[in-house]
């Protein structure tokens, strides 16, 4: 039942302090004064509590269990991160400079550590999410080429067909022409294909490494060299940074621009889809184009630098999703140098353990050592059983587990993309393997059971086709 249906006219859930000021006459022109009471809930505090308690109970969450969404990095979200963010919630972004030194210092220190982790020279923390970071990074690239007088020529951005959908979308928003690169047989960038598209009309090559198949681009140093030889920039999609920490850095591999998803690798929670934070780090030659303000070291402290005449401007108001940064900062302080390497080591170990065990049941798309994730290819399985990948996903919910990412990457037709993360124990992984095996057997013995799943969830399988065909956008009385 919606909160609107729980509403009763005249009920209230709030009380404001006694009001002590005399009322002025309302000077708002009559035609600008609201006439109709908006249809908003009128409920007691108890109703509010029970409504949102009930809604929360209908959600799956990391705190409930395993959430192996590939490329989403659903790791455990430490509670202390939340506590630390609470220390900063009352600050107004336009307070006098001398009253916000702590916040600036925190951003400065965070930026320095993230530059170190990415192997970049400068950074903006302003973007609010990964895709926002992509847009920012491409706008920086754009400004760079404009400044060099090459923008008229450099219209193309190369994006592999295995890339996240945000990559081409961001490139389009930044005004570039998107060219899709077909992956090679080994799941990696095909150097021939790349060569065929790579010329001086290319502005940027956007890569995720490891890519969305969970495979590390072995030829990355060659790719970087090729890109730079034609004067193009190399862009790193940070969604999969969780795989490589402590061993290599995007900047070291030759990437010029790197975005990070603080809500993924650095475990600020996902909050049902956001807020995130998508800082971008850049090599020195791109630093003049970053959004303002940039945080800079000034003696022992940090300061805000607005003096970037070549800056792209701003991509959102103020400094970004600051409290999300506090959480990532807390996480980095907690894990530290060795801890971050351990994160990647164990994330990759877990993925390979799952891959090794599941490959005995399902077909793994590229069954070799993977990084932090891997992809199952159900094409044959679907043909054999009539059970779809979506059905397997729904059936997993009945086992109290979340499903992996499905139907992505697009280059594997019935893909399940599995990223366990490092915070999951062997016991949990074994439970998942066990459920996947049971579902495999169910699909063979009783496919209808799987096709109608889930059964044990707060609601049965939902019709999203008609939901889009005959859309209902809002509650109406």
């Amino acid at each position, binding site marked *: 039942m919606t909160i609107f249906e729980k509403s009763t006219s005249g009920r209230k859930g709030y009380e404001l302090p006694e009001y002590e000021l005399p009322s002025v006459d309302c000077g708002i022109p009559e035609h600008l004064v609201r006439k109709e009471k908006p249809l908003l809930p009128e409920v007691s505090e108890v109703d509010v509590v029970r409504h949102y308690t009930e809604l929360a109970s209908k959600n799956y969450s990391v705190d409930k269990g395993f959430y192996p969404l590939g490329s989403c990095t659903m790791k455990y979200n430490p509670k202390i991160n939340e506590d630390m963010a609470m220390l900063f919630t009352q600050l107004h972004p336009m307070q006098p400079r001398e009253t916000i030194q702590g916040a600036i210092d925190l951003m400065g220190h965070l930026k320095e550590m993230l530059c170190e982790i990415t192997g970049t020279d400068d950074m903006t923390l302003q973007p609010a999410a990964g895709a926002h970071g992509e847009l920012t990074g491409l706008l920086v690239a754009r400004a760079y080429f404009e400044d060099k007088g090459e923008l008229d020529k450099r219209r193309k951005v190369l994006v592999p067909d295995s890339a996240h959908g945000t990559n081409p979308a961001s490139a389009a928003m930044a005004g570039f022409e998107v060219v899709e690169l077909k992956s090679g047989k080994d799941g990696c960038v095909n150097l021939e294909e790349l060569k065929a598209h790579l010329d001086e009309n290319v502005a940027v090559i956007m890569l995720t490494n490891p890519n969305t198949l969970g495979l590390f681009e072995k030829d990355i140093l060659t790719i970087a060299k090729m890109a730079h030889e034609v004067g193009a920039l190399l862009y790193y999609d940070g969604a999969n940074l969780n795989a490589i920490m402590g061993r290599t850095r995007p900047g070291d591999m030759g990437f010029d621009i790197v975005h990070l998803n603080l809500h993924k690798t650095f475990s600020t929670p996902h909050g049902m889809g956001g807020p995130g934070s998508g800082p971008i780090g850049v090599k020195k030659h791109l630093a003049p184009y970053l959004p303002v303000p940039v945080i800079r070291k000034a003696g022992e402290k940090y300061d805000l630098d607005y003096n970037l005449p070549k800056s792209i401007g701003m991509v959102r108001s103020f400094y970004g999703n600051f409290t999300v940064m506090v959480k990532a900062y807390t996480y*980095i302080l907690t894990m*530290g140098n060795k801890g971050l390497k351990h994160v990647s080591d164990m994330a990759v170990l877990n993925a390979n353990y799952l891959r090794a065990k599941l490959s005995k049941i399902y077909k793994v798309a590229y069954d070799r050592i993977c990084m932090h994730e891997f992809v199952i290819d159900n094409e044959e399985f679907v043909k054999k059983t009539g059970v779809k990948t979506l059905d397997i996903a729904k059936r997993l919910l009945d086992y109290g587990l979340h499903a992996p990412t499905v139907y992505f990457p697009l280059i594997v037709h019935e893909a399940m993309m599995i990223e366990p993360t490092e915070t999951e124990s062997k016991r949990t992984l074994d439970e998942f393997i066990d459920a996947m095996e049971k579902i495999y057997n169910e699909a063979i013995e009783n496919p209808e059971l799987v096709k109608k799943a889930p059964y044990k969830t707060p609601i049965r399988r939902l019709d999203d086709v008609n939901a889009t065909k005959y859309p209902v956008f809002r509650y109406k009385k």
Partner: protein
Amino acid sequence: MHRYIPHTEEEIRQMLEEIGVKSIDDLFVDVPKTIDGYNIPEGKDEFTVRKFVEGISKKNINFDPENIFLGAGIYYHYIPTVVKHMASNPNFVTAYTPYQAEVSQGTLQMLFEYQTMMCELTGMEVANSSMYDGASAFAESLLMAVRVTGKTKMVVAKTINPEYRTVAKTYTKPQGIEIHELDYDQSGKVDIEKLKSSVDDKTAAVAIAYPNFFGVIEDLKAIREVIPQNVMFIVVAEPVSLALLEAPGKFGADIVVGEGQSLGVTPNFGGPGIGFFTTLEKHVRKMPGRIIGETKDLEGNKGYVMILQTREQHIRREKATSNICSNQAYIALINAIYISTMGPEGLKEVAWRSYNNAHYLAKKLEERGFSRIFNGEFFNEFVVKVPETYRQKWHEMVKDGILGPIPIDRVYKELGPSALVCSTEVNTKASIERLVEVMSK
């Protein structure tokens, strides 16, 4: 071993054996080892980390909300205790985007209700389930106007929040969009005559703030009347004010966007807040962002799912309405809990008190010789002339525990020394009078 990372040495050994490799390093053979550790400190236990971050936070100064008169897009309001308690449920905090609808009904229903609330406040037909902030929502509204109209000239009021306009420029430049800045008049509202002359055949949209950055309430009716029907009308609205002001939808707005921070969200040093984005059903397929719709499950029970996903980047890729993927869903939750708790009466009371407090403060300041620069009717903010030395005074007020009205003459140079004064329901009679004293000294 680490408290967040469970494996024991023995388990690692077992797992490596299962994989068929000898060591963890064997899993990374493809990766060029370019570093030997980071030049960052080693990890710390949580007690040390807590103390350290608390130490940093102490280098900030927090003000008692009753002594805060700084708004300019981010506002202090009373936030009922229940908001934080309900929003901190880990089943909201640690959930992902609702890709598996059957185990995400909490998120989906909440967002559906949030969309309804935003439609009600703005008077619009559809809302998406959030944008990053008011500035980026405004920027996206211009991009949408291009998609709807096929035209690229935007008439944008100079009275829209300067940060929003800056961000809009960043977003629109690569699309070759021309932004024509529209001047204001003595009232602090847009100059209607100039508006008339600015709009031409190439114009995609006119964008107005309501109330505007100076706190002045634009006359949307008069504005809409002079805009041709085939030019889109974009309104950047302050949502709390909408409990008191007529909904922009009533005046024929095509898109209403804004910053939702004032609806129960702490200032958060400017972020996270939330951009709301509403429009008309006829434009919905051009709207950016995620939309939740109602549907049924296979037993006929009502449920909620993401709809119209073919507009979105993960399906439409470079042809998507926007690249937005992560949004501000958690802040939408806070908005929804706040609105549920306050209800229509509570929101109206908040809006009215803010209005009344600001007018009381304006009167008191005028009595002490601070003149208002604009004569247009205002909501909870207004601009006053201040002495040349005011910026210095603004810093000095910190010692009195006051976060005073912000000087705005660096952005609006034409105004000369001036400050934007804000009051909401959290200011008291005493705190208002104290501000007047301190400012008059």
